[in-house]
Structure formats: structure tokens, C-alpha cells
């Protein structure tokens, strides 16, 4: 019988990393130890624990990782709570990849890239960041602005400090919302920090974070002279099928699961404000 997209495959959790008090990163492989499927940066997968639920998560590892996939998941509901309680060796079901992903091999090619993320919003960007780091020569400068509520809430902190910060041509700008002991970096909200940093407009911007952060950052970027066609973001709405048929993740006539999750900001302006 031909393959049915709604029927998932098996995955095994081989590693669980505690990122922040409410974010864990799960490493998933197929039972035979290989990757379950290939993806492009920005795409998502449906993870599920039968009987608990199924939900869409962005794949946070880069496709250049040939061994496994990773998912950084924040605890916020029934399923994610369950995932946070599981142990290494637990099997999950997985299907995908879904969505369009970031245009890493077309639009982004040769461009200077500016990544702006807030909180768990780094998860979908991490895949792109590591992808462009891997093919470093194909891209221009890389700037990363990442902010969180506190030092403890910075996802992938170790990777940021040990790998991204030390890499030449990658500028990392971290910020946290409030002063904290042991933090000597920048303090303040992401939108303001972006304005303070005052980037040149010769960049393509990739932004993800809480809606309120996106809203104010976009305003800041346009003050700096950026055009909406330069800005890409990734969306999230409730999904059930992942393939544009169950009918709930639409923004106007576009389905986030199929036509998204990556949208250029001027495309979003064409759609009704219902997200």
C-alpha cells in the first residue's frame, strides 16, 4: 500500500539536554540509529506520544548534522509536559518534514544575515544558523541578536558561547530583560537592543520570538531603514495534519503548515491579521 502521511514513523530519544528551567532539547533518531528523514532548515515535524497528543515542532538541528535530529521544546501544555518527563530511550512517533523552510540556498545565498530571536524563538533559527555556519563561504556576515528573560532562559547557551561566539565572522549579541548577578552582558529588550546596535540595511533579517517582540522589532527595523521584503519570520498555529488539509492553521488563504511556516514579512501584510 502506498505511504500515508498521517501514519507516523518511530523515533527514539537518544539524548535529553536541559537548556533552561522550561526548555529541553531532545535528540531523536530512527530505531535503526539513522536519521528518520532529511529536512531543510526551518521545517517542522509532528511529534507524538500516542494517547497524549501530537504537535508540530520545529527541527532545531541543522540538516548538515548527518546523525540525528534535535528538537528544543518548551514546556507549555499536555504533550510538552509529558515529553519533559520522559527518559532517554523512550520511543516517540514522528512524521514530516513539513513546511517550506528558509530559502537558504536561494534568497539567503551570498547575503549578510541578521538573526533576531527571543526566548524559545531561537529554536527554529538554530537550524539555519548552524547550516550557514557549515557553508560559511556561501554567506556574508552573520549577526545574531538573542534575548531572553534571564541568563537561565537562554536556550543553547553552551553552544552559543563555545561555538558561535568564538567563530570568526559571526557576531553574537546577547541580552537579557533584567539585571542579574553574574551577567555582564547587555540588559534590555530585544527591540531596543536591535535599534541600539543600529545595523546596516545591507542584511537579510530572520526573526522569531514572541509576537510582541516581533511587532516592536519590526518597527525598529523599519526605523533603521530595513524593508519588509528583507525580513523573514516563521509562524506557529495549531495544526493537526501538517499537510494543508485539516483546515485550522490558515491565515487567510495560506496554510502555515504547507505554505509556511516561513513567511517574508511583506507577504504577511497581504494576509488578514489573524494570528
Amino acid at each position, binding site marked *: 500500500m502506498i505511504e500515508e502521511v*498521517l*501514519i*507516523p514513523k518511530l523515533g527514539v530519544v537518544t539524548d535529553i539536554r536541559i537548556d533552561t528551567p522550561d526548555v529541553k532539547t531532545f535528540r531523536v533518531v530512527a530505531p535503526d540509529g539513522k536519521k528518520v528523514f532529511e529536512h531543510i532548515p526551518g521545517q517542522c515535524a509532528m511529534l507524538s506520544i500516542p494517547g497524549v497528543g501530537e504537535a508540530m515542532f520545529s527541527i532545531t538541528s541543522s540538516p548538515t548534522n548527518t546523525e540525528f535530529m534535535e528538537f528544543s521544546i518548551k514546556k507549555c501544555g499536555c504533550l510538552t509536559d509529558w515529553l519533559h518527563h520522559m527518559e532517554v530511550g523512550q520511543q*516517540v512517533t514522528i512524521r514530516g518534514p513539513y513546511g517550506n523552510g528558509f530559502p537558504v540556498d536561494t534568497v539567503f545565498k551570498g547575503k549578510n544575515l541578521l538573526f533576531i530571536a527571543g526566548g524559545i524563538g531561537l529554536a527554529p533559527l538554530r537550524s539555519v544558523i548552524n547550516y550557514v555556519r557549515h557553508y560559511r563561504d556561501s554567506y556574508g556576515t552573520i549577526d545574531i541578536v538573542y534575548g531572553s528573560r534571564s541568563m537561565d532562559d537562554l536556550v543553547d547557551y553552551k553552544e552559543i558561547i563555545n561555538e558561535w561566539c568564538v567563530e570568526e565572522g559571526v557576531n553574537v549579541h546577547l541580552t537579557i530583560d533584567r539585571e542579574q548577578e553574574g551577567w555582564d552582558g547587555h540588559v534590555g529588550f530585544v527591540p531596543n537592543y536591535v535599534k541600539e546596535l543600529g545595523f546596516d540595511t545591507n542584511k537579510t533579517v530572520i526573526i522569531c520570538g514572541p509576537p510582541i517582540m516581533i511587532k516592536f522589532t519590526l518597527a525598529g527595523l523599519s526605523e533603521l531603514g530595513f524593508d519588509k521584503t528583507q525580513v523573514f519570520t516563521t509562524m506557529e*498555529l495549531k495544526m493537526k495534519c501538517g499537510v494543508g*488539509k*485539516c483546515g485550522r492553521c490558515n491565515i487567510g*488563504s495560506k496554510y502555515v503548515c504547507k505554505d509556511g511556516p516561513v513567511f517574508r514579512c511583506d507577504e504577511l501584510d497581504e494576509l488578514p491579521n*489573524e494570528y
Partner: protein
Amino acid sequence: MVKISFEKLNSLFEKISEKYDLFVPTKKNDGQSYFEKWEQGKTVSDDLNTVRSAKDFFFPQHEDIVSFKLDGKNIEITDERREVRPFVMFGVRACDVRSFSILDKVFLSEPVDTFYKAKREKGIVISLACQKPSETCFCTTFGIDPTEPEGDIRAWKGNDCYYLEGVTEKGNALLSELSLEECDRTEVDAQIENTKKILDRLPLGKLDTDSFGGDKLKELFDSEKWASLSESCLGCGTCTFVCPTCQCYDIKDFETGHGVKRYRCWDSCMYSDFTKMAHGNPRLTQLERFRQRFMHKLVYFPANNSGEFGCVGCGRCLNKCPISMNIVKVMKTLKGEN
């Protein structure tokens, strides 16, 4: 064109039933018609529409997708797809037949929905021309001709016989198996002419659809009229569930005590939990949910399907909505006619 007299209909049905599951609309004791599996003694109802639309055959209200057995940290996955027995539906009206091509656009587009496809391939549709349309019919608005319906085979009910005409390859193949008596179109043509006169008198037969379509997205979405239109909406799923083109679904898990069954079932965008996530809901009030349903049919669907509307004018929502709010009232109000 071939014909089969009323007396011989039973033996025809018998013959079809040998190879296929045959479904015909039959009247139940509640006075309404339902598609039921034909067996000796069941007669074809003359009612225009069954309460539940014919989409049930390809997209049933619920179907098992997959089941799981959990054992410690391990999960076992079992495909729940079953072989579909070939079936024939007799007496599907023009509006419902058109709805299949609308559903096709959703379920047969990549990635193909194999549950739907399997049933679609195994199903043969014998449509039945309408002779006495109802005041709630407005299929003609969407370019559907109820006197000459689509389908694999189309049928007309004459004075003492049914006339049948093969339309598709599948339909012609079935017809040739049945070896019926050849005949001319005289009665059929007369009937079509007669029905067309009635169609001209339908109060909703020629609704204006010019103000709708993919290019009207923003102005319709931002219309102030949604507030009053949705005001008395109860948020039930009646319109959705009787609608032949509504295809939104939910996927749910059921814990059986000895494993988990994952099934898909109809869902309604009118329900408050349709888009509810752990961190919020983009369609918080009934206004947004109500708007979504009609925008989908009148704007979003045409935007993605070269202008075709997601409504076939069957009139079920006109008959069944508890508060008598429906797509006709919505269209007229948005256009400023009400």
C-alpha cells in the same frame, strides 16, 4: 442512453449488489432520507437531499488511521487502513456530485490522502437529475446544472423508468456490464426543458457571486458586517457537518485500555477549540470562527483553486441551521442587499 423500467429496478439493483455495495437514498421513519445500503425491499426516495451529504462515502465522520501499542518505552505502530470494497451510489444529486470534485482538490492534492483516494477509486457515482428543486436550492449560482448532473453515470427519473447515460469510463464500463435496453432521449429532453423553467423561478437561483473570490480577501475580511451576522451563532457544528464541501478534520487518540487508537473525525471551525493552542487562540470569539467558515468557502478556497467557490448550493445549511443563519444570508448581507 439506456433505460430500466421501475419493475425491473429491483433486479438491476440485485445485479449491481452482486459485485458492489450499493447505496441508495431511502426514507426513514423520521420523514428524512438517508443513504443506506440497498437490500431487497428498500426503495429509492424522491427527496432532493439526504440529511447527511454524500461526502460520507469518501470522507466518513470518523475513520481509524493507525493504532499503537505502548510497552514501557516502546511503541508499536499498526496501519489501520483496510481494503475498500467497490461500491456504487445511486441517486446522488448534482450538488453533491460537484462537492466530490471540490473535496478532490483538497484530498487528492499532494500529499495525497490515501484514505480518501482508496474510497474515491472504488466508488461509482450514479447521479440523479432533479425535477422538483426546492426554494432553498441555489446550485445554479455556482454553475451546476441539476438537470444534467455530473457523475460516472447520470440518471433521470421518467414516468415509468429510469434513464441512464454513461459519463466516465468507469461509468460506461458498469453500464456495459448491466446490458440495459437502448432508448432515445425524447422524454429526458422534455423533462430537462420542463425543469429548466422551474429553475428560472427559484428565488435563490441566480445569486451574484461577483463580490466574492480570492482577490476580495482584505475588504471582506475587514467588513463590519461580520459582527451582526455572527451575533446569534450558537457555535454548533450543524452547518459544517451537513455541508457536502466542509472537510476540516481533527485527529484524536482514544485510549482503549489495551492500546491507543488514532482516528480522524470531522471537525468544525465553528467550535471554540478548533484553533486553541496551549498558549492562546487566534480565533477567540464566535465572530472570527464564523468569519472563517464563510471566508473559506467564498474567498480562501477560490484563492487557492482558480476561482472555484467552496459551496455547491445544496441548501442543507439553509434547512438545518438552528438559527437559520446561512451562506445565502451572509452573501447578501456582505453585498449590502440585506
